[in-house]
């Protein structure tokens, strides 16, 4: 199962140009808000609004940002024991997931490579809810249908609504409409309604900030977005800032920091492989992943902090002090909250310790950098 690479803002669009772009239910609203639109994972998506990426990024870190993430795939699994069934495809502890709780996990292949990363919510004993990456959703659906006999796999559709409200003001904003939202722990989910609109609320996101993802029917999404945008703390935020926020938070972007050639151990996502599953195995590629747990992997995903002001972009070669190639950057750019360049990449295990000096080959010149601890900006999830 191959999954297309999600193109980043600024990257060339790798999607099939002959296919018409899909539109999220907020497409018209993006136009009204003056968004600059780009093709992304098969959708026509807002990369930035008139405020620009820098201001949008900083606004999310200080107030609340509203993101259209309706392009992500929302999938409902129903069956006798979908949690047990799903464990055949992922290394997470899904059976141990309490009702109303969410877990980050990975679809792996037989070589321990990552087919996609996803969020799994335990809705009830017979129901799970999944959010998968936009560029992977058709492949993921086929993978689920083939791998989970006896489980009903229901895709909510290309036009279902999903909003992310992220930032330190998110809780206060959402509590005006759903008081119970304020006390929700990180990685929990409830259903509610907001002025008559039925919603699924998850206290989760991908910016490193406290916040929520709010699912709604496509037909309700615009009304919901307008209601949230009417709150004084809330500004619309595009994909450009979403990318710089998740990079500062040290979070992987599928197709860049993780893909079918990287394992959970190499990707430093060992926390996404539950202890029980490490021992029991039973997920695709388990033997190789278990061996890497025992013996270590030959390379590892690390944070990279360039010493100067020049950003190092994806595919930049990383060299050791002796000039030997030791890896490459998988995500890199300017971190507005760090106020300087930040990056992530893979390096040979011997160079993975925090503080190790490395060189980044940018435009033919070796720029000094150091292996750095992730995240670059501390997570501010609500732990209760």
């Amino acid at each position: 199962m191959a999954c297309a690479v999600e193109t980043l803002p600024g990257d060339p669009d790798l999607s099939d140009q002959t296919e018409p772009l899909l539109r999220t239910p907020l497409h018209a609203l993006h136009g009204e808000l003056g968004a600059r639109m780009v093709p992304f994972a098969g959708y026509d998506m807002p990369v930035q609004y008139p405020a620009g990426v820098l201001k949008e990024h900083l606004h999310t870190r200080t107030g609340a940002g509203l993101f259209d993430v309706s392009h992500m795939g929302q999938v409902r699994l129903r069956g006798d024991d979908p949690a047990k069934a799903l464990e055949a495809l992922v290394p997470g502890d899904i059976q141990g997931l309490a009702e109303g709780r969410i877990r980050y996990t990975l679809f792996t292949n037989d070589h321990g490579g990552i087919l996609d990363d996803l969020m799994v919510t335990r809705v009830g004993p017979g129901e799970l809810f999944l959010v998968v990456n936009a560029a992977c959703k058709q492949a993921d659906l086929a993978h689920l249908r083939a791998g989970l006999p006896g489980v009903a796999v229901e895709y909510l559709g290309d036009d279902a609504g999903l909003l992310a409200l992220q930032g330190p003001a998110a809780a206060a904003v959402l509590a005006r409409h759903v008081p119970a939202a304020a006390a929700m722990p990180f990685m929990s989910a409830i259903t509610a309604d907001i002025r008559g609109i039925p919603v699924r609320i998850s206290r989760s996101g991908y910016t490193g900030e406290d916040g929520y993802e709010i699912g709604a029917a496509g037909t309700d999404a615009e009304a919901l977005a307008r209601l949230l945008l009417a709150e004084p703390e809330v500004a619309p935020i595009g994909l450009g800032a979403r990318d710089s926020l998740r990079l500062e938070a040290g979070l992987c972007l599928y197709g860049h920091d993780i893909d079918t050639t990287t394992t959970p151990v190499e990707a430093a996502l060992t926390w996404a492989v539950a202890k029980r599953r490490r021992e029991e195995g039973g997920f695709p590629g388990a033997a190789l992943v278990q061996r890497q747990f025992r013996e270590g992997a030959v390379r590892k995903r690390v944070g990279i902090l360039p010493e100067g002001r020049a950003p190092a972009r994806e595919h930049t070669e990383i060299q050791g002090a002796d000039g030997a190639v030791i890896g490459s950057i998988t995500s890199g750019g300017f971190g507005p909250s760090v106020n300087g360049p930040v990056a992530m990449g893979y390096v040979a295990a011997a160079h993975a310790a925090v503080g190790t000096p490395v060189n980044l080959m940018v435009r033919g010149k070796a720029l000094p950098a150091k292996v750095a601890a992730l995240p670059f900006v501390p997570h501010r999830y609500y732990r209760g």
Partner: protein
Amino acid sequence: MIRFTKDHEWVRVQDGIATVGITDYAQQALGDVVFVEVPEAGRALERGKDAAVVESVKAASEVYAPADGTVTEGNTGLTDNPALVNSDPMGEGWFFRMKLADPAQLDGLMDEAAYSAYVEAL
């Protein structure tokens, strides 16, 4: 005299020295500029070849030399404050100054009206 290239550089000549920057259209397309690398004095530039680098939050782009010549000065103000490219692209946000080898090379570039029409058509 101010002239424009199809790659969205502007060049203004005064007393035989050309000042080069990127246009307002270019800075808007780039978005927030976060890093600029300007050439040092004495560097020989070749028309149409890389002369400077401008990086926005999104991506890196090259700034090309509009003509052959030698750099007399890079705008070090941009090193400390790259955002000048966004706030004043045709003024304080200039990239470098150069002595032209053959001022006639600029004759083939667009004037302001032609550039406006060019951008309109993009």
